[in-house]
């Protein structure tokens, strides 16, 4: 008999041990660095519907994110940049496997080299664009096509004469006999149109470097920091300031990790503290610890099994699971047997309906989040659903091993002890709450800011701004990215974007002619045979000594005689000439191809859609995206809520079902109303918290349904459950991460409101009871 009775205990124990061992084995062998991300962009869908945001995403995770800026200063000679030390630092970084490139900014040798290349390739890189523009102007005159060489010569000579009155003409006079078409001066004109960069490097020597690995990976952080520290060690007397995405990513990871540890510990302590106040023999609460651990362990295991990569925020939000997972344990553990001979199996069967109703309705609601576009919301949906199922299973199996498991509550009574005055007061409060719930939400303001997903690190931002200022960054300009599926398409759109600009704008893409202009030049060369003679005559007529321009005529004839080449080889030639920071101004190798343009305005009206040009104000783009996801999350939440309510009506009679549905929904609207009246601005995570709070409040409405029907106070497990949940979420309310704070505060307020409703409900209905 004894063997037969103990068999279920052993089976339960074996199942629990096997589950715990499986989870431990999986989690211990997990590559946490590869599996867990702190990159904000990982919160976005990999295949974002908006192609342009996909480009921004690719851009932000590509080479530009690997840039590291370093500024060296000698405190003993603060006005003199330590150029030699900077060169040595760059050389050391280049020798490190962590860095792909390191160059000293303002190195005259490198600048001279590229300047020479631009001049040498002016006929391939600049002439086709110039010629196409002149031909368009000529076409507009309506003259016969065979008059083009003469018109072109006269126009070029007039432009040259006019240029000589410009301030820069004297400085460029050696260049003009070789470039009377002003191809290179026109390029330099961009610098005239754009305000000076205004670098304030002072006594700093500047080094620009590119890491090999992404700053969001381990390889892009610790080895980079070590290489910089090693390079700095060779010049201990110099002061080094540096910045890079890797610093932010590493700091973010470290802070979130410490946040997880702190929140988990505080959450557990809060739950145990609340429990100790409401139960006798508090040591018995230790029986709930394995249930919480198995719930969280199960949630971690299942989530990491299902997703290739999870954002760390999921685990921060997941720390609240201890407050929820304990609910089923409380309910099972605190229910006394109906009769002395009632077995655990009998008791479980008796409580199974509310337990399953509570757990499954919440799981159904959270499962709906799997249909969200936002990876973070999908991951939270899986994490919480899996954790709740594990918590229920673990509670049912764990207490099967105990002889008559019972945790006695310390408080048995309720608030339902007042008379008519108390009843009237409660009803008045209910009316006031109804008004708040109905009117307050209309005053809500919504705003999503991607920066709220991260911990603010003021010191790093200040250092970053200071270093970038040394490198000459100006807030008076804006950066625009023009993209296309092919290189020719991207360049054609860049041309259209630049043509539409009335303010100063410049792009490295102007060194590459549009594909159509390049092809036209290849075919046009033969038709310009008479241009040389026409240009000589036009120059002489304008007071120039035409023979001074022989270097140009020689180069012109050579360019016309040069064999035709492909557009791709032209782009490759240009790409090869660009080094260091200039390599980041365009992508001419793989789709999506793009060019950056700098505009001499902090903001400009959004370019027409057909220009496919987007501002690199990444935050604004992502904020818009988050706003879109908020509405998507709202739709899913409402559908989920509908399913939960539908399930409740399917399980319970309609009057009881109505009560179960109204309490959480009312609490939610009341909290939103109160926040609206308080002038709070809410975001996506308040909405997510509200959904979670409503699902949790359903539990309390379900567990207290019997008592409500009898007009008595709710059972102790409901109070314990609600207060421990409020405590654990209240802890999240202290998080320094704004979105976690939003989520924790919302859930705690909704849960407390629901508990208050459940507690006051019998008092308000006493007369009828």
């Amino acid at each position, binding site marked *: 008999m004894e063997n037969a009775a103990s068999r279920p205990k052993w089976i339960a124990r074996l199942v629990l041990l096997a589950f715990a061992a499986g989870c431990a084995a999986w989690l211990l062998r997990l590559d946490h660095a590869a599996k867990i991300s702190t990159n904000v962009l990982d919160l976005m869908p990999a295949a974002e519907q908006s192609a342009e945001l996909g480009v921004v995403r690719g851009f932000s995770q590509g080479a*530009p994110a690997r840039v590291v800026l370093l500024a060296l200063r000698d405190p003993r000679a603060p006005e003199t940049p330590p150029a030699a030390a900077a060169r040595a630092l760059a050389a050391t970084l280049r020798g490190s496997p962590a860095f792909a490139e390191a160059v000293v900014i303002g190195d005259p040798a490198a600048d001279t080299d590229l300047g020479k290349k631009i001049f040498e390739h002016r006929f391939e890189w600049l002439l086709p664009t110039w010629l196409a523009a002149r031909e368009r102007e000529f076409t507009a005159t309506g003259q016969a096509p065979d008059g083009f060489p003469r018109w072109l010569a006269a126009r070029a000579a007039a432009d040259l004469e006019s240029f000589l009155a410009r301030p820069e003409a004297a400085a460029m006079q*050696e260049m003009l006999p070789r470039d009377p078409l002003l191809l290179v001066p026109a390029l330099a004109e961009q610098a005239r149109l754009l305000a000076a960069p205004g670098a304030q490097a002072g006594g700093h020597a500047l080094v*620009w470097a590119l890491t090999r690995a992404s700053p969001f990976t381990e390889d892009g952080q610790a080895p980079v920091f070590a290489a910089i520290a090693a390079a700095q060690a060779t010049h201990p007397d110099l002061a080094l300031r540096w910045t890079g995405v890797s610093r932010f990513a590493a700091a973010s990871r470290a802070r979130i990790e410490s946040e997880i540890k702190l929140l988990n510990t505080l959450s557990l302590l809060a739950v145990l503290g609340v429990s100790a106040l409401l139960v006798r023999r508090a040591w018995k609460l230790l029986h709930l610890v394995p249930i919480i651990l198995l719930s969280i362990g199960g949630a971690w295991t299942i989530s990491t099994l299902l997703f290739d990569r999870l954002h760390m925020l999921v685990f921060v939000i997941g720390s609240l699971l201890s407050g929820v997972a304990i609910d089923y344990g409380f309910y099972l553990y605190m229910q006394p047997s109906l009769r002395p001979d009632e077995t655990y199996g009998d008791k479980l069967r008796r409580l199974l309906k509310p337990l399953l109703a509570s757990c499954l309705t919440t799981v159904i609601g959270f499962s709906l989040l799997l249909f969200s576009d936002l990876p973070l919301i999908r991951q939270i949906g899986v994490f919480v659903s899996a954790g709740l199922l594990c918590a229920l299973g673990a509670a049912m199996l764990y207490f099967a091993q105990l002889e008559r498991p019972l945790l006695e509550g310390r408080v048995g009574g309720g608030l339902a002890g007042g008379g008519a005055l108390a009843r009237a007061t409660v009803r008045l409060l209910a009316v006031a709450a109804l008004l708040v719930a109905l009117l307050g939400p209309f005053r809500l303001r919504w705003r999503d800011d991607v920066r709220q997903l991260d911990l603010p690190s003021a010191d790093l931002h200040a250092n970053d701004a200071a270093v970038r200022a040394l490198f000459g960054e100006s807030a008076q300009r804006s950066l625009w990215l023009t993209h296309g599926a092919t290189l020719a398409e991207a360049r054609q759109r860049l041309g259209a974007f630049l043509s539409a600009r009335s303010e100063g704008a410049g792009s490295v893409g102007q060194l590459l002619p549009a594909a159509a202009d390049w092809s036209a030049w290849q075919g046009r060369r033969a038709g310009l045979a008479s241009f040389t003679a026409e240009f000589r005559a036009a120059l002489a007529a304008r007071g120039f000594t035409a023979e001074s321009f022989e270097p140009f005529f020689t180069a012109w004839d050579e360019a016309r005689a040069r064999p035709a080449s492909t557009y791709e080889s032209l782009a490759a030639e240009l790409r090869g000439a660009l080094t260091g*920071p200039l390599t980041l101004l365009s992508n001419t190798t793989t789709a999506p191809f793009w060019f950056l343009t700098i505009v001499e305005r902090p903001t400009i009206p959004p370019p027409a859609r057909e220009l496919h040009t987007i501002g690199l104000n990444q935050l604004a783009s992502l904020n818009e995206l988050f706003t879109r996801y908020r509405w998507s999350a709202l739709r899913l939440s409402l559908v989920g809520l509908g399913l939960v309510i539908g399930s409740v009506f399917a399980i319970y009679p309609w009057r009881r079902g109505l009560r179960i549905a109204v309490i959480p929904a009312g609490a939610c609207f009341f909290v939103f109303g109160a926040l609206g009246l308080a002038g709070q601005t809410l975001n996506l995570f308040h909405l997510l918290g509200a959904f979670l709070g409503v699902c949790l409040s359903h539990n309390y409405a379900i567990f207290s349904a019997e008592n409500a029907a009898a007009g008595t106070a709710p059972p102790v497990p409901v109070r314990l459950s609600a207060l421990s949940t409020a405590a654990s979420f209240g802890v999240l309310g202290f998080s320094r991460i704004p979105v976690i704070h939003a989520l924790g505060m919302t859930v705690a307020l909704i849960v407390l409101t629901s508990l208050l409703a459940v507690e006051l409900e019998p008092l308000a209905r006493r007369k009828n009871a």
Partner: protein
Amino acid sequence: MPSSLVSISVHQWLTLLGILCVVFSELHAAEPLPLPPETLLADPANDPAWRDLFTKLAPTKTRQSKFEERRFFPFRKEPVVLTGEVRIVPELGLSLRYLSPEKNTLIADAKGLLLRDDLGRERTPPNDSRAQAATSALVRVLRFDLAALQRDFAVHGRREGAAWTLSFVSREPAFTTLLGTLTIRGENGALRAIEIVKSPTQRIEITIRDSVEDVLFTGDTLKRFFR
């Protein structure tokens, strides 16, 4: 953040555009004209023959003059002529207002050179060290900062009656290559002409006339012609 970091690349691009002319000038510069060694002034700050002139030339009063600039190019038969007004405010620096053929303002002050076009758009020389050296040297000459001038330039002087000529040859060969030799001419305590000579066919002559001292510039004028 990455977009911020890439703007450093943009800055580098602008810098490069700005120094294109510098680069080319270095590659194809003519040899500067030699000056007679006997005109070299060993210590002009303490030379009684020149000390007073430097004191007078150093801007202590506001001043406004008209000027004509003649630019000689080796590939052009006649010089290009530009006209305008020059304003000097000792605390703010020097401002050249070109009136023809294009309207532009060139400001030389303690921060260096600034070019402002008629639409108010501004441009400063590139941050390239060579261009910076050239512009700061120009500013020192135009401000007659004798201590700095003696440190950076070999000063040649010549007098013929009331007329005088001072030439400044940079001790830094790269600067001489870029800009050539700076010469100023005048009579008594008045500046009459500035010449920047790279070769006989490459030079700029600026003649100054109708000078008025102690001019009271209005706030609008100061804002428009200085920074």
